[in-house]
């Protein structure tokens, strides 16, 4: 997948996953919104599923990142050591520097 949108965040950068409060189809789960993590990997740029879901294909590609969050930051009752983490993919427009 060749990116035609350069990443705005570098691996290791601290980021907040913002809640865009956007109705309709999105791929950012509720459980990570307003949480802070670290850029783990730049996946490349992909068409926005929020557009594709309504038949608007062939649109602009958006940078996609793997973001790593600590489980203790996601769940108040997390059962496990502090080192446990979770990684998921977040599109650029859902991120801001933390």
């Amino acid at each position, binding site marked *: 997948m060749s990116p035609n949108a350069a990443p705005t965040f570098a691996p290791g950068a601290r980021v907040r996953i913002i*809640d*865009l*409060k*956007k*109705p*309709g*189809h*999105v791929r950012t*789960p*509720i*459980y990570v*919104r*307003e949480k802070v993590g670290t850029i783990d990997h730049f996946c490349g740029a992909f068409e926005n*599923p929020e557009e*594709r*879901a*309504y*038949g608007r*294909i062939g649109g602009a590609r958006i940078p996609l990142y793997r973001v790593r969050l600590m489980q203790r930051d*996601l*769940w108040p009752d997390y059962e496990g050591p502090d080192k446990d983490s979770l990684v998921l993919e977040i599109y650029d427009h859902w991120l801001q520097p933390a």
Partner: protein
Amino acid sequence: MAERLNSDIGGLPADTVPRDETPQLFWEKHLIATFNVLRAKGVFNLDELRRIVEAAPPEEYKRSSFYGRRIDGIADLLIEKKVINRDELIARTEDVLLKGTRDHVA
């Protein structure tokens, strides 16, 4: 906080993970194949199917099964795109059930 999509269930309480393994039924495999062919032909894309499945009322989603969501989603998407007619699908489905066999389908 935004409203949670019905499919956005990460972190919600749930029971023990069901472990019984049942092989896919023939029709379920045929449904997946049909889905693949429709996507390959550009009739719809995967994101559209997800969006349609998410549009089901939450109570319906909670009660739904995996292949139930698939056939309902694909049908609803094809109806939305006016590829097929809803009333005709209902009538034809009842017809199949009435005949009770699969023989007449090519």
